[in-house]
């Protein structure tokens, strides 16, 4: 393991990046998979600091952004049902569906509550037994355990008016599809520290083994990301790709086994559609039969939803796959902004468009 001199970390990694760039004769193309990394990179100015030698692309790591249009529409249909309370993370409120958004439905009288945790939503359900509370479960391996926990608690406490609409996804299957794309031609990956805390390093072994790509699991301080970039650069120099752990404080080889068990108890893998990607087998988490009472998609009937093709020019699908950057979208900043978003990447705090909009880079 290379040791960086902490006070000079930034300077050393910038120099290393220039050296690698010179050797390759072109800019180095790295992807940060995680939405929180996208935000840290923009906010701290890392993207700008490395601009002359590294192109940092954002990947499919923002859960709201990768949620399929049809799923957003389903959520909006739920919001229109009488007697139902939609409870959700705040990021979902403004995401535009094909014909409306939760924010607009709320203005028309729908009951929409914002929570920071599904457990708060469960407590809300306990306090309001006259309402059916549906929690919109969005997120990767990081949020799935706590949603799982809320379902287990609901069962234990005998709360019958709480259910979850699971839109949960797991990252590795989508990463495989992404890396299979010959157009992308990445030189390395900054892997998501929070997801890997749960899944363990092993779950991402395929990145080096099957795709021969350098990568490093990074933490979320600017220094963590800079260090991870440095570790990937060294792998590129040596021509020896591996999945390194930069976020040693939390990420272990096997991950958090307890959290993994909790996910397995309540959820099972299913095929699910991702924005920009389409259907990816085994990449979703659906609620197991034993917990059907807490599965909103089984508990409530919904009309079949026609997929309405949105032709507003939004390129979120391309941005999620790292093929385009937000400023390449003709809507970006001109008509699309976080107050009047045209697509989810501008809504979610972790979305690439939102990060570019708020932090200018």
């Amino acid at each position, binding site marked *: 393991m290379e040791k960086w001199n902490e006070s000079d970390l*930034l300077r050393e990694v910038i120099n290393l990046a220039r050296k690698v760039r010179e050797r390759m004769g072109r800019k180095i193309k790295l992807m940060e998979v995680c939405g929180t990394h996208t935000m840290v990179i923009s*906010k*701290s100015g890392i993207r*700008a600091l490395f601009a002359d030698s590294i192109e940092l692309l954002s990947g499919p790591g923002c859960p709201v952004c990768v949620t399929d249009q049809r799923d957003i529409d389903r959520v909006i249909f739920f919001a229109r049902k009488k007697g139902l309370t939609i409870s959700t993370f705040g990021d979902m409120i403004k995401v535009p569906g094909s014909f409306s958004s939760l*924010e607009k439905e*709320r203005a028309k009288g729908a009951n929409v509550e914002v929570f920071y945790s599904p457990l*708060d939503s469960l407590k809300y359900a306990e306090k309001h037994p006259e309402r059916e509370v549906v929690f919109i479960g969005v997120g990767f391996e990081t949020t799935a355990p706590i949603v799982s926990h809320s379902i287990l608690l609901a069962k234990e406490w005998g709360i019958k008016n709480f259910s979850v609409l699971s839109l949960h996804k797991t990252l590795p299957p989508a990463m495989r599809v992404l890396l299979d794309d010959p157009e992308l031609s990445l030189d390395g990956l900054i892997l998501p520290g929070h997801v890997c805390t749960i899944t363990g390093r092993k779950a991402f072994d395929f990145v080096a083994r099957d795709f021969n790509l350098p990568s490093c699991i990074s933490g979320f301080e600017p220094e963590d990301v800079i260090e991870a970039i440095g570790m990937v650069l060294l792998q590129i120099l040596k021509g020896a790709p591996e999945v390194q752990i930069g976020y040693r404080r939390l990420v272990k080889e096997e991950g958090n086994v307890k959290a993994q068990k909790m996910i397995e108890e309540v959820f099972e893998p299913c095929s699910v559609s991702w924005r920009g990607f389409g259907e990816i087998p085994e990449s979703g988490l659906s609620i197991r039969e034993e917990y059907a009472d807490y599965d909103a998609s089984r508990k409530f009937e919904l009309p079949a939803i026609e997929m309405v093709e949105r032709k507003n020019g939004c390129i979120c699908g391309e941005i999620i796959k790292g093929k385009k950057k937000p400023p390449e979208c003709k809507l970006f900043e001109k008509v699309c902004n976080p*107050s009047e978003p045209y697509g989810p990447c501008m809504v979610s705090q972790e979305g690439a468009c*939102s990060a570019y909009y708020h932090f*200018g880079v």
Partner: protein
Amino acid sequence: MEDLILLSHGDGGLLTHNLIEKYFVPHIGNPLLESMDDATSVILRGKRVLITTDSYVVDPIFFPGGDIGKLSVYGTVNDLSVSGAKPLYIAASFIIEEGLPLSTLERVVISMSEACREAKVQIVAGDTKVVGKNQADKIFITTTGVGVQMEGVKLGKNLIKPGDEVIVNGPIGNHGLCILLNRGNFSFKSNIKSDCAPLNSIIERILMEFGEGIKYMRDLTRGGLATCLKEIANSSGIIDIFLEEEKIPVEKEVRGVCEILGLDPLYLANEGKFVIFVESSLSKDLLDFMKNGLNLNWASVIGIVKEGRGDLFMRTQIGGTRRLNMLSGNPLPRIC
């Protein structure tokens, strides 16, 4: 579908701006209104008088560090003060929901009277209306304030010049975060208090001491520090403002909670903070006066004005530079 008012129309950001431009200015606009400052300056019988008005709908109505009553007095006092006026009189209107305990109402009114005493203003006109259950939430208060312009004071966005420095009087973000944490949907314990406070005596002393060296002031309410400074740069169009991230005061606990919740203190509301644009030659003395003369230990020179095109930039702690935009898409309504 007809367009409806969304909660975002009230967040003080882009949609609020559009609402005012499209639905108010065309019908009731006039040169005085269109200055769009915290308070408007009019001449009454030869005296320069400033007028401002604000409605308070904060939820919850009692929160650590303050309540809707204090807020309704201090908010209006502060709008007058940063505009260079000595606040004198306030008119207050109450919209009260059926079923509100009278003891709650009295608590709010007592709090207002204490706030008036502290800020040395008087409530000289008032009105009460009661609406049915669920037609308002507990109590909404509108206050209108008038004050007279202080002698020897000249403030205006147009007076800001490249080279001027920007000072803030204390740590930012407390009010917005405090309100968020005290909403029912949240099981998160903290000691964070609102910074809700009157600024008139501090501002009076600063203006008396530094007179025309002070170019412009603004209080940092909805939208926080970043939105306020971006608006100032934007409306000038010929200056940029450069902030130093490490100079911006934020309490440790506020920073920590913001990190956990993914919030940015630069965009959180304040109710007792303001920025001063001051000539660079006076900046050191002013900071010294604020720290030692006024006990504002957290006061800090946070940035500098340069020639530019209306942008706000910040040098980050690791040395990168990024552009800051106005608040947009705030998920939290009813903070003040």
